[in-house]
């Protein structure tokens, strides 16, 4: 028996580019929505994003594109030509949700903004995910990961005080923005379920990053305090420290006392007041670091992680690599990976499930679409004849491998 999926009554058009928009649309697909990716005949920029399968920069081999576009069908349609825009308007008449990430005002210039499309379809929800949001003096500024980290406020407190601010590795702001896009879309859908009216959802990546600063922000509005970056020396406890075969982090808290932490490291001198008292610890950071690094220089990450977590109930982390995560039994137990069969890439395990649900959870249905793969089935469904499709294809208004 196929269980119903929570969003299986929805048609979603994904006009997103890059990571955040497409990933947001994919999350809706994971919960059953029929997601149609609409990209230009030359393919969206996400198809050109590394890493590539076997480092081959052939457009159907972008692993980032694969990740962000699972569970979608795809059409390649030029929205900047009036016939292309007209086709999108027809698609939008039966759509429930549109996800987009163009600069604010771009869709309006094509007559494809929410206000226009909602005239024919008042229930339409449109979610826009942009670097600085739809309003405000920076709304036309361009953004990317590092710009979001800088202007969002997190870089100012990342890294060390003697050096420049430091971004996170990878693209976490984009991932977080995708999550917030889906969250806010869900909220708009709950409202629409009540009153039948869709709305325009405005997600700013900068605002998303700022929203994680729940200690930093009110420190200012409660007492005027402005956090900076930690000092490079003398305060490594609570930060990354070296051991025999890699790096670890530990912290006070969890199910352990400070004395228990001293016992784990096998160094009774750590029980002295100058270390035990958190207000004195920073001032004695050099001595603390020296004792801990000496105590751990011959211990491995795996042993310490297990001992600290199981026997001492400490908060303890080890610096795991992508290889460690690819072989992690805990992720296996969570059903984290989907086995994807892609027509060009072949069989590959893709990180998939963000969280679990007892029923109605994320389900993998299909790989990312090839460029224009579903042109015919999607456009015939809105009444295009085969002859029309052939003309559109010949004129380059639709394109890609799916042809017409």
């Amino acid at each position, binding site marked *: 028996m196929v269980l119903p999926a*929570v*969003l299986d009554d929805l048609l979603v058009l994904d006009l997103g580019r890059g990571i955040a928009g497409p990933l947001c649309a994919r*999350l809706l697909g994971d919960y059953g929505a029929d997601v149609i990716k609409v990209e230009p005949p030359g393919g969206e920029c996400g198809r050109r994003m590394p*890493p590539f399968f076997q*480092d081959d920069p052939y457009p159907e081999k972008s692993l980032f594109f694969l990740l962000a576009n699972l569970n979608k069908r795809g059409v390649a349609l030029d929205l900047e030509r009036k016939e292309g825009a007209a086709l999108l308007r027809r698609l939008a008449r039966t759509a429930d949700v549109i996800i987009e990430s163009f600069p604010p005002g771009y869709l309006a210039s094509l007559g494809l903004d929410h206000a226009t499309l909602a005239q024919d379809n008042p229930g339409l929800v449109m979610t826009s995910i942009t670097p600085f949001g739809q*309003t405000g003096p920076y709304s036309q500024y*361009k953004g*990317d990961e*590092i710009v979001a980290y*800088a*202007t969002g*406020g997190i870089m*100012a*407190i*990342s890294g060390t005080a003697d050096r*420049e*601010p430091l*971004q*996170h*590795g990878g693209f976490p702001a984009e*991932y*977080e923005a995708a*999550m*917030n896009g889906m*969250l806010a879309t*869900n*909220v708009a*859908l*709950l*409202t629409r379920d*009540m*009153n039948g009216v*869709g*709305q325009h959802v405005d997600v700013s990546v900068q605002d998303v990053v700022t929203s994680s*600063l*729940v200690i930093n922000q*009110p*420190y*200012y*509005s409660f*007492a*005027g*305090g402005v956090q*900076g970056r930690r000092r490079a020396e003398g305060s490594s406890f609570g930060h990354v420290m070296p051991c025999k075969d890699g*790096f670890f*982090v530990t*912290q006070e808290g969890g199910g352990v006392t400070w004395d228990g932490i001293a016992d784990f490291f096998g160094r009774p001198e750590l029980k002295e007041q100058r270390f035990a008292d958190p207000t004195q610890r920073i001032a004695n950071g050099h001595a603390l670091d020296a004792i801990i690094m000496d105590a751990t220089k011959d211990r491995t990450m795996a042993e310490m992680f297990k001992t600290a977590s199981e026997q001492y109930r400490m*908060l*303890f982390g080890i*610096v*795991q690599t992508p*290889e460690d995560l690819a072989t992690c*039994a805990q992720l296996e*137990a969570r059903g984290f990976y989907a086995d994807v069969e892609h027509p060009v*890439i072949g069989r590959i395990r893709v*990180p998939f499930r963000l*969280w*679990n*649900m007892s*029923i109605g959870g994320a389900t993998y249905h299909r790989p990312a679409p090839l460029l224009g793969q579903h042109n015919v089935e999607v456009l015939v469904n809105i009444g295009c004849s085969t002859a029309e499709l052939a003309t559109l294809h010949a004129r380059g208004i639709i394109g890609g491998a799916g042809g017409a």
Partner: protein
Amino acid sequence: MTTKQQNADDATRLPLAGLRIIDISNVFSLPYAGGLLADLGAEVIKIEGPGRLDISRGGVFSGVYPENEPSEDPWNRTSTFNLLNRGKKSLALDLRRHEGREVLRDLIRVSDVLTENFTPRVMRGWELDYPHAHKLNHNIIMVSCSGYGPHGPYAQYPAQATTQEATHGLAHVTGYRGDVPSKAGQSFVDFLATWALVMGTTLALRYRNRFGKGLWVDVAMYQLGCYMVADRILDWEANKRLGERIGNRHPWLAPQGCYRCAGDDAWCVVSVHDDEEWAALCRVIGREELARDARFASNDARMRNHDAIDPIIGAWTEKFSKTEAMERLQTAGVRAGAVFNARDMHLDPHAKARGLLETVEFPPERGIGKRVIIGRPWKLSGTPLATRGPAPTLGQHNREILQDILGYDDARYSEMEKSGIIGSRPTAARPILRMSMEERVRQGRLAYWDQDYKERLGIQD
């Protein structure tokens, strides 16, 4: 009521109006999710033990007291707690005792959502995990947040964001170029969990609306953290590449970096994505000849010669303030961003225009006044949202919840108060950090502090 009136009423209704959520939450992730659900219109009842207060009511994660003054009831005054728990009701209930758990069972019977972030064995041990909660209320939606999830080899490991940032793979890719792994930001994975918890709750509510069934949402912070490096995991799966730490550079575009500007600890990031943007950058910095220089003629060439580009950009940015550098570059179509700190995020014109930060007014007897807190990073054109009031004091709504909602009589209420099942003062206090603002700056906990911050924010008494 006519359909038209009904529609008009529905249109102004908050999305989660009429829903009751039990929020047994601690630290950041779940408390914040509960605060957002309250913004969306739900009645959110936060339950803490009188002897087991939320960690954000004191100690290192609690931020700071208003004017750095703990006062008579420090547990009600910390900045972090008051941001995260806005708009909720507070029930201080001892769940470690059987009578306390009986109250929780009664509440589950009359609620829509039960959220909790204990280590998985706790609710199981109390027979309050999903199968049991479901028996009490077939329609209940349960939302759990744990470090690693209830099953698997790490299920019982204690977890918190700071240490998980290493284990879930982010520290491996974060750090200065060629340097050791590093932590970045603060408790990063907690906020991934916050978003996931609200996503899961809203999906579950729609599921229940459509199919008439509750369900269990099971969020593990580790799993979410690992998802944030999904592209790196795929690079390993496909290409056996482990990735490296590249600091502020971009993995495949150049140039990108964080450059010093005029002023104290002032920086601006710059990121060039293509040849056209490179030419624009060269124009802005008055070095148009570089746009024709073979060393920088293509992205590949710029990647190879990145070291030569950095001082050229830095020599230009140091002549301008961070915001002026950003504005000049962005106006020319070059991606750039001033590195904003906590003061900037309150006072920058764009932040003010967006209104992400909202002012909450506390009742006069709380002695907190008006404070600015983070709202929500999304705006809905048809549903204006705002924080719906300050965070509650400990046990502020004990009577309302036990008597008005559950219908307990006066005698039963008094008995529970007397025996300490409920309370409004902590029986085990959270640590109070007494340290002057000057000392915090001296120790490096703060970069600086603004004595006149209230005037700057316009929140004077």
